[in-house]
Every structure is written in structure tokens, then in C-alpha cells.
């Protein structure tokens, strides 16, 4: 992680369209960064005094650095898929200045030692990395981990991602104890008793291909139960990871209306693709939760627009070729997603579905920052961290998986023409990525 106190000098970002939903700003403004923090936000040409460097942002959007609540950096233990260095390089290329990494590594990140290890400078992270620690030991769903210790070591949430907490008593205890220290609990909502041997969404495509399908109920029933549990404890915070169904959205809405502290995230692939895109066993369209029906996707688009959804998260899940280019049922779940998130959001949400740019920026910044309480991030208010993403919302480009910064290439978006491209990613005042 970049040290916050380092002297990074000053950088004046001039003439960009500054979108900072947390501060309710959407206007042409100049932005002065100094020594790792936002020093000033002002109308054009009002900032006086010498600066070390200038950045001409005319025609570009200047936004708070993007925050991804859900990435798999694969360290410790699976560095053949990704490392913290390569995963964060991909994050920077995609405009993300902060990522929350999931604990389903080898071993599982269930101790303070591993939480600390992830954050060591030797890991070579080029963006901020906030570990999510396991909620139960080895994510086995039986014995809770030491939430206080993990939080002290730097964990921003607990989750058994990939291995949902199905046992109601354990989930209740998780929410209750996490509430005591104001720690969010992230649940991968899937009733795995209903999804055994399933490799995609239950649909006409699954029937045609002869693949066992996961029902939408397998997701929605868990979200519904969790929302009810969260309402039992004051202060309990439930975050629904990669929500994918219309029915689960209903449960989230019910919770939000009932004043439960429930938040949720949606991935770019779920708002872009449907299970029909699996076509003839395209394993790059195999993820968990699976791609759903057009109806579910429609519901996600509505929820992204109307404020039900708190964040866009990529669920960046790198896998090696030999884990993906195999029989569909054997192929591992997941795709990489850090570098395509903004392009897909602008192409699908903004251009096709007319969701305002400011709302998209909110879903990538202030929204996720609130979910895990990243203070001083997700905004460009004076005094905030100098994490900035500068992008061109009109630039058309073609994604080439072969040129990905990630170690892996498992993406269905190879060769896609996208609109909206990251121009520069600034982390703690230093340029972490600059488009060529």
C-alpha cells in the first residue's frame, strides 16, 4: 500500500469535468493534490501558486478513485493465477485505486497474520488493498474467526465468499458479533444444497446444453433469510455480494425499507450478459453466481438506476487456461473484470440505458466507500486521499485480453468494442497508470 504520509509533491489537474457524487459536484473544476491528499477543489484557473506538475484534463472526467469491493488477488497460495502485484496493476489500468480482496485463498485469510501479510509492501501493490477476512475459520462455516483482531490488522469486512454461511445460527452470530464492532458481513448468497453439480443458471439454455441449472431461488432465499437476520440486531451490516437475481433484489429492497443496514453490489458481467451468451459451452461465461435470464438482467439495470444498488464490483476472478479451457462442468467459475468494468458501465449503463454518468461514478466511488467505511476515499473533498481516476467517457477502444495486466486471460470480453476509457489512475497523489 502507498504510505499516506509520503511527500508526493503537488499535481494540478486542470479543466476536467469533476464528478464527485459524495460532494454533489458535477462541473468543470481544477483539482490540486498535494502530499497524498486533496489540497483544493476550485473553479477553473482559481488555484494560485506553484505546482510540481500539471495534468490537462480538458474533455475528461475527473472522479474520485474507483473502489472495487470484490476482487480475488489469489495470494497467498495461488500466484499462478494472479499476484497482488499483477492484480493491482490490472486494477490501476481499470481505474481502481482501492480494491477489497477476498479471503478464499490458500490458505484462507482467517488470521491477523495473513491480513497483515497481504498489506506488506513486499507484495508490490500499486493500488490500495483492503483485505476482507474470513468470517469462519478456513471458511468452513463452523467456528467464527477473531473479528476484533482481524479488524485491528486491517480487515474491512468479513466474508466466506465462495462458501456461503448457510447455518442460520452461525450467520446470526456472525452478524451479531460483527455489529458490535461495526464490521460489515459480506455474504455470497447461494444455497449450495440446491446447486450441487450445477454449472449455470437454470434456463432454456441449460436444458438445451444438458447442464444442471441453479435456480434463482438458491440465491434469493439466502438473501431473504440474511436480511431478516440482519434486522434482528441493531447495527448489523449485511452486504450482498454479486447479486444476480430479481428476487434477491426484492429482498434487499424489503430490507432497506425496513431500515436494515443492507447493501449490495452488482458485477459488470451480470448487467451485460445473460445465460444465453454461454452459447455452445463458452466457459468464459461460466461464473458464480451464474449469468441469468434477460428478465433478471433487466431488474438489475432498474436497481442500478434507482439507487437500490450500492456498488458495481467486478468479482475479478483470475484462473489459468488449464482451469478454464476444459469441459464446461469442470471449468472453474469466474472471469477477470478489473480492466473492463468502466467501459462496460459506460457502454451498457450510460449509453444504452441512459443512466447518468454521475450515478455510475457514485456506484464506483462513494457507494462502495460507504459499504466498507473507507473514510477519506470515494470523494475528492478537501483533505481526502489523493486517489483520482481520470477517464474519457467518449473514447472508443477495443479490449484485448492478451494485453491484460492480469496474469490470467479468462474473459468473455476479449475483442469487445467499448466506450469509456481510463486515461490516468492516481493513487495517493502518484500516477499508478497512464493510458498510452
Amino acid at each position: 500500500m502507498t504510505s499516506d504520509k509520503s511527500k508526493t509533491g503537488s499535481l494540478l489537474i486542470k479543466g476536467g469535468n469533476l464528478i464527485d457524487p459524495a460532494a454533489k459536484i458535477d462541473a468543470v473544476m481544477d483539482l490540486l493534490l498535494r502530499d497524498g491528499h486533496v489540497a483544493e477543489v476550485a473553479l477553473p484557473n482559481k488555484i494560485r501558486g506553484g505546482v510540481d506538475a500539471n495534468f490537462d484534463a480538458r474533455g475528461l472526467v475527473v472522479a474520485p478513485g474507483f473502489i472495487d469491493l470484490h476482487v480475488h488477488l489469489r495470494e497467498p497460495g495461488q500466484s499462478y493465477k494472479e499476484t497482488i502485484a499483477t492484480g493491482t496493476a490490472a486494477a490501476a489500468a481499470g481505474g481502481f485505486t482501492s480494491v477489497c480482496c477476498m479471503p478464499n485463498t490458500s490458505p484462507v485469510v482467517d488470521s491477523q497474520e495473513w491480513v497483515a501479510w497481504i498489506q506488506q509492501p513486499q507484495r508490490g501493490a500499486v493500488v490500495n488493498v483492503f483485505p476482507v477476512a474470513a468470517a469462519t475459520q478456513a471458511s468452513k462455516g463452523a467456528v467464527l474467526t477473531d473479528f476484533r483482531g482481524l479488524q485491528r490488522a486491517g480487515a474491512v469486512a468479513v466474508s466466506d465468499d465462495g462458501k456461503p454461511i448457510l447455518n442460520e445460527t452461525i450467520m446470526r452470530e456472525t452478524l451479531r458479533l460483527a455489529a458490535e464492532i461495526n464490521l460489515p458481513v459480506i455474504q455470497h448468497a447461494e444455497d449450495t444444497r440446491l446447486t450441487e453439480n450445477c454449472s449455470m443458471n437454470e434456463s432454456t439454455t441449460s436444458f438445451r446444453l444438458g447442464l444442471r441449472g441453479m435456480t434463482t431461488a438458491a440465491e434469493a432465499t439466502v438473501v431473504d433469510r440474511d436480511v431478516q437476520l440482519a434486522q434482528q440486531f441493531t447495527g448489523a451490516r449485511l452486504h450482498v455480494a454479486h447479486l444476480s437475481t430479481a428476487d434477491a433484489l426484492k429482498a434487499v429492497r424489503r430490507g432497506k425499507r425496513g431500515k436494515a443496514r443492507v447493501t449490495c453490489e452488482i458485477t459488470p458481467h451480470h448487467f451485460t450478459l445473460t445465460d444465453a451468451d454461454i452459447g455452445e459451452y463458452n466457459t468464459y461465461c461460466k461464473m458464480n453466481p451464474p449469468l441469468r435470464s434477460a428478465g433478471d438482467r433487466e431488474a438489475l439495470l432498474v436497481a442500478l438506476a434507482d439507487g437500490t444498488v450500492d456498488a458495481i464490483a467486478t468479482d475479478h476472478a483470475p484462473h489459468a487456461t488449464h482451469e478454464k479451457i476444459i469441459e464446461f462442468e469442470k471449468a472453474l467459475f469466474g472471469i477477470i473484470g478489473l480492466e473492463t468494468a468502466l467501459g462496460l458501465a459506460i457502454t451498457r449503463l450510460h449509453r444504452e440505458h441512459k443512466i447518468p454518468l454521475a450515478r455510475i461514478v457514485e456506484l464506483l466511488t462513494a457507494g462502495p466507500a460507504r459499504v466498507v467505511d473507507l473514510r477519506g476515499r470515494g470523494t475528492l473533498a478537501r483533505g481526502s486521499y489523493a486517489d483520482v481516476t481520470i477517464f474519457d467517457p467518449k473514447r472508443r477502444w477495443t479490449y484485448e485480453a492478451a494485453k491484460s495486466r492480469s496474469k490470467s486471460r479468462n474473459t468473455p470480453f476479449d475483442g469487445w468494442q467499448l466506450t469509456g476509457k481510463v486515461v490516468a489512475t492516481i493513487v495517493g497523489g502518484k500516477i499508478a497508470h497512464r493510458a498510452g
Partner: protein
Amino acid sequence: MSKGARGSLLGIEHLDVKEITGLLQLARRMNPLKPHPLLKGKRVLLLFYEPSTRTRSSFEIAAKSMGAMTTLVLSSGSSIEKGESLLDTAYTLRAVGADVMVIRHPSAGAPLLMASHLDVPVINAGDGMHEHPSQALLDAYTILRHKKKLNGLQVAILGDIYHSRVARSAIHLLSKFGAHITLCGPPEFLPELATCLAPGLHITRTAEEAVRGVDVIMVLRVQKERLAGTKIRLQDYIARYQMTLARLKLAKRDAMVMHPGPIIRGLEITWEVADCPQSAIVEEVRNGVPVRMAILAKALGKAK
């Protein structure tokens, strides 16, 4: 993904009527009893990841009766057992000189995966719950030995359709030729989703309704273990869906009874029906050979 080398047979779904008709016509010219060295010097690799009696022996005899060499590779007792991936196995077998690969695999889509990475034709001998194209072709071949055409034929398919690759391939094939198909089984074996396979499919939960007035009855195997995973009791299944002489009487007088095998007498079909004059079950097995000769000849570009 590419569709594989020329001559591959991965499924019925993406074939057109002309291609199917071509294969059936070719099969009619094949005579397993009069060996003809059409495939002399060719190497046919039979790669079986699942046990099989009739499909395997049928492909083997088809290949040999055209003078080809066959090599059988089973998943047990080979490097597959040691964890070799499907593609690595495929590359290895290609390297030893296979000219065509016949594959049976428990995973849906496995033949397509292989075909899209190989420069030799791949023939799907059954993949998971997906397709079993050579079975559908031999069924069509068998029907056409008794009926003038498939168009307009009334066909009932009974049993565990959900788990059946035979059913998927048969439904694709028969509906492409304009047969009227009624599917019958309990919801666990026949979800409403099944109607997506082809336009105009009918679903009924009553065996009597399914077979009334039909020309062809296809009975599918029902595995006891699969019944065990549902709420249906074995006795109830038998009572409601078993193919009996009484139900057969509801069909047309010259209706054919078909079954892809292996049959479990006393479960999905009674003794009497399996052995009755209308039963084409043994004939289907016999017809498997010329049909698979045609498939192999076409795969190797010898379909003159």
C-alpha cells in the same frame, strides 16, 4: 470456438435436414455383411470415458467392416485415470496417428471442446445429458424402414427426458423433419423447460394421453438412483408411466416401440412390450452398424 474439423458429428441440433438425409441415405448403402475396405489404413480411435456396450461395439464393428483399424482407449487403466486432461489426451491420441476420434464422455460439451482443438473429425458417441447423435440417426433410420416419412408422424417420448441425451438428439432430429412430438413424464424428469428444444413440443403427465393414436413410442431408460433423488416412489412411477400392453393398445395398430437400451424390464417397460412384434428394440441395435458406418465414412471423406 470452431465447430471442429470437417466431418465431425457433435450433435443433431446444428445439423440441417439435408445433412441428416445425406447420412441416412449413405447408411442405406452400407452393408456390414459385405466388407468393403472403404477405410483401409485409417485409424479410428474410440475414446470412452463411460461404460458402453452397444454404442462402443457398434462403432467398432462399423469401422472394422470398412477395413479401418480401431483402438479403444478407456478412461480406467489409462493416463486419464492419472488425471490427464481431456485436451492432453486428445493431443496425445492425435499424435499417435488417429484419423478420427469417437468420444463418449460424462461431461456435456466435451466432444465440442475436443473438436475445436483438433484437426481431425470428432464424433460424439454421447456427452453427458447433452446429445447422442448416432442414436438419433439410427432411430430415424429404423423408423424409416417401417414408415414412409418422418413428416407428420405422431411420436411419443416417455420417461426421464431431463437426464437423457438420447431424448435431446431424437427431439431435435424428429422435429426438424416435421414429426409431432409429445413428451411424457413426471415434472422431475420432464420440466416445462423441455419445450424449448423445438417448436411445437407437447407435454403431458399421462402416459395414456401420450401414446393415444401415435405411430412411434420411444421409451427411455429410467435409473433407479435418479428416481431415488426425487419424491416419486418406484411403484408410482411404474403405475403411471410404464409401457404396458394395455397402453400400447391405445397407439396406432402398427405403432413401433423403441428404446435406446439398456432396457430395464419391469421398470419403464414390461417384458411383453419389449418382446412384442411391434418392438423395434433389437432392430435398433442392428441398424446402429450401417448408420455408424455412414458416420465414419463421411467423417473420413469417403462418402461417395
